[in-house]
């Protein structure tokens, strides 16, 4: 996969003349999970959307660059908290949406493979309303993978799920996104402690980097180092409250 480039975000953003976040420098290392952690409204999603080339409503001053100098927006796949499944299309139709929206043939063998890997084969002909929350999010993950992009941007992807389903989704996501550069935006320090190779905590004052335990991801749910790290992230978040 041509995923061996990293992404650098350097700059600051204003929202309606007020600073949204102070100057930051964020590095997404190639083929690693970077986690952007922070409370609501600090601009985590704004950073992700800036990388994705989406509207943010904020004014960003600075630069967002790939280490190989190439375009970024064309090389990302995006997944949000809302699964964004089209209610009138089948699961298979949703997973292959990208090809349809580009006017291209859908890759049937890849669809079949992704349905299998996300355990949705028998649900392929159902509509999203017939699925559980976890299944819907798996379909959204399959759709993200169908795009086959080197960079994957996850905006609170598992926040709406119950604890058990969330942990299962985290395991599945790490497995399926192996080899890709991932940015995950979350307000959940537990999620950051399980999934991240590198963590950046965003607050109005700027970015603070934290180094998670060295275990490979996903770290086991009962890994004591991770739990301790979770607690220390939590302490950082509490301090950051103005």
């Amino acid at each position, binding site marked *: 996969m041509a995923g061996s480039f990293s992404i650098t975000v350097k700059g600051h953003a204003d929202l309606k003349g007020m600073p949204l976040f102070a100057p930051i420098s964020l590095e997404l290392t190639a083929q690693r999970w970077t986690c952007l952690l922070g409370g609501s409204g600090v601009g985590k999603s704004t950073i992700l*959307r800036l990388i*994705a*080339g*989406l*509207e943010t409503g904020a004014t960003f001053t600075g630069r967002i660059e790939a280490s190989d100098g190439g375009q970024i*927006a*064309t090389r*990302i*796949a*995006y997944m*949000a908290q*809302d699964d*964004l499944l*089209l*209610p*009138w*299309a089948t699961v298979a139709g949703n997973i292959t*949406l*990208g090809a*349809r*929206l*580009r*006017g291209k043939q859908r890759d049937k063998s890849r669809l079949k493979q992704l349905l299998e890997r996300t355990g949705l084969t028998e649900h392929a002909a159902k509509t999203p309303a017939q699925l559980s929350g976890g299944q819907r999010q798996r379909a959204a993950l399959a759709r993200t993978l169908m*795009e086959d992009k080197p960079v994957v*941007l996850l905006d609170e992807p598992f926040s709406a799920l119950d604890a058990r389903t969330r942990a299962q989704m985290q395991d599945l996501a790490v497995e399926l996104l192996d080899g890709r550069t991932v940015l995950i935006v979350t307000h959940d320090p537990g999620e950051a402690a399980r999934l991240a190779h590198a963590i950046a905590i965003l607050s109005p004052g700027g970015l603070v980097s934290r180094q998670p335990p060295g275990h490979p991801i996903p770290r086991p749910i009962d890994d004591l180092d991770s739990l301790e790290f979770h607690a220390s992230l939590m302490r950082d978040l509490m301090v950051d409250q103005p």
Partner: protein
Amino acid sequence: MKTLPIVAATAFAILLWQAVVSVTGLPRFILPSPLLVMETWWQNRWLIAEHLLVTAAEVLIGLMIGTALGAATAIQLAASTRMRVLVRPILVFTQALPVFALAPILTLWFGFGLWSKIAMAVLIIYFPVASSFLDGLLRTAPGYLDLARTMQARPIFVLLYVRIPAALPSLASGLRLAAVYAPIGAVIGEWVGASRGLGYLMLLANGRAKTDLMFAAVLTLGLFAILLHLVINRLAQRLERN
């Protein structure tokens, strides 16, 4: 729909009507009794049916053409911002003009036959369909559009596979309004100049002080309008479910 309340309400209305006739003793050319109207209706059933057929044809053809034109306009305007800026004020202006004022001109242009009435129905339907469908097309959930954007979607396919399906419920509400307006357009057209149709029959009966026949024609029109509403409502529900 529950039948019992409808039967009860109808019975109540007829009783009230009869009571007014009995108490006031109004002459039959001012207010005929329900029984007399039923009798007249039955005696003239073929005459009424013949005229109903004409009006129904005007309404249905008008509905089809008006909906098709309105929907096509909405899609056209949704696809192009420039067209929207240019055409929207014209649309609003034509709607501010009472369509009834145009009836004599339409009769002049399209003659006394079916087409001047169809033109009336089309004109009166066109705006509600176009404007509510356009509203729906412009209010696509932003998440879908973000997703489409990260997929490098082509605008035409976004319109086709996302915006139009998402706007079908709005088209449905436009269609419901259209079903209410279409008979009004046709009947007004018939009043201005016609030799057939329920509107024509009403004027004719009124002019000859055959008030009972006029009532029969009005009731027939009412029943037809309700039937039309039920059918269109069924169709609209199907669109909303998509």
